[in-house]
């Protein structure tokens, strides 16, 4: 599997949920239930709770950091995010969750090959610190 670039440090191990399209958390994720509510998203209705969320990039509103923080705080959020492209809005949500509540939430960018190897429901371990990041199956 692969090494990645750490955007925000943390570690998590959980089943992956691979989104086929980017998701704007604001307007797209209900922080009370953890479900995708974006009617324009092909996977509307799926539950991100407790998952390593894998998606190509961020999308849409600059309020997405807040919705990510609310969902993690409410216990409905994912436990890590893996993307192909860096997204400062998502990274900010993870930074604030740590500053406010002490919760470590890794955000990692991986290359195309690693990204393509991730499948929904496969157990994925994510580790990110100042030295680097790894995303591994199992």
């Amino acid at each position: 599997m692969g090494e990645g670039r750490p955007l925000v440090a943390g570690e998590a191990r959980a089943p992956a949920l691979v989104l086929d399209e980017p998701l704007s958390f604001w307007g797209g994720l209900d922080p009370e239930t953890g479900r995708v509510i974006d009617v324009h998203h092909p996977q509307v209705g799926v539950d991100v709770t407790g998952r390593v969320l894998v998606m190509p990039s961020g999308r849409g509103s600059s309020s997405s950091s807040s919705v990510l923080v609310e969902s993690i705080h409410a216990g409905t959020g994912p436990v890590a995010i893996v993307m192909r492209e860096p997204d400062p809005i998502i990274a900010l949500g993870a930074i604030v969750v740590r500053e406010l509540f002490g919760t470590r939430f890794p955000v990692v960018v991986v290359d195309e090959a690693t990204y393509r190897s991730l499948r929904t429901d496969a157990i994925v371990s994510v580790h990110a610190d100042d030295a680097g990041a790894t995303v591994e199956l199992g």
Partner: protein
Amino acid sequence: MLDGERGEAARLAMRIVVELAGVMEADRLIDVASAHVDGCLYHGPASLEFAERLVAGGATVSVPTTLNTGSLDLLHPELVRETPERAHAAGRQMELYEAMGCRPTWTCAPYQLPGRPSFGQHIAWAESNAIVFANSVLGARTNRYGDFIDIAAAITGRVPRAGLHRDENRRAELVFRLSGISDRLLAEDVLYPVLGQLVGREAGSAVVAIEGLPPDTGEDRLKALGAAAASSGSVALFHAIGITPEAPSLEAALGGRPSSRTVEVTPERLRDARDELGTTSREDLAAVSLGTPHFSLAEFESLMPLLDGIRVNPRVDLFISTGRDVLAEVERRGWLFDLQAAGARIVTDTCTYITPIMRVEDGPVMTNSAKCAWYAPMNVGAEVVFGSLGECVRSAVRGRVWRDEGLWADG
């Protein structure tokens, strides 16, 4: 600031700015001239906790800072159909941001306020439609700052030197070329949000150039285009060739490089984008919503003759969201009386698609805003119908959707 000499809140704000600089691979921090903050919108207990912590830590902004919409209409509180608990928390969220020294402007269109940013100025703006307008139409420089970093930048006065603050990242990567679009459609406001919808879908977060728009395309059309492209995608900067300040020519917008891809914008693709904005075939409307982003004075000017001598169907609520400053001018011109006589209701400080105002359970909502059409189904549970301003007004009077199909005909 990291040492805490400006207090705990400034230290937290600076930690956020510095860590974001690492994420964005910035070489250093730069000063910003102003900030526009979106954190005043209530998202839940965690966002309130963040604001409480900043105020308790002595936070004050160090640059002129305007505030985006909140979750309440403070001038017309009866319009918001929120639970008392949530309304209380939303009000507290707004108070806390004002307490940090931000101006209570409560508008998503800060570029309609006096003293807007100048060309080339570095700013820290939140709110996706304001960001894309500031970058594209004003030529100011901001990244897509969102909640938390917006107020952190306002408190510290600094942002990472990265992304759209740097020349090399402002060049277009993708070109949209209008082809075979009728002169009639090019002259209609409704083209622009639909074009923005298509651009956002195709471009994602890329910087784009758009070729073939009329040279006299006005600010409100560019506002609608940008707001749509920042909803269906994450577009933060577009260059309208021959119109926006960094795009006197396609070559200038591309910065001397070839574009990676050119997308032909045909009438057929525009019709598809338009159709994507509706979620229902129901025609019995409960509401018509105008003013996402907040209605400008010029938009009121176009609306007034359409409302002359008519009255909105009693089954339909016609809402127009706008900023307090624009509303004051509307009142001064005597238009508020005419708007109310026609049955229109003004919403300020918030917007119909982010807080429960419309009776969405009674029928679909029609709007001329692609941004409202995109978000209202998710945020307030509305079924939506998209149409031009003229179609919206006529539909509001009939109580049923009315369409001018000739608008979207070929060439």
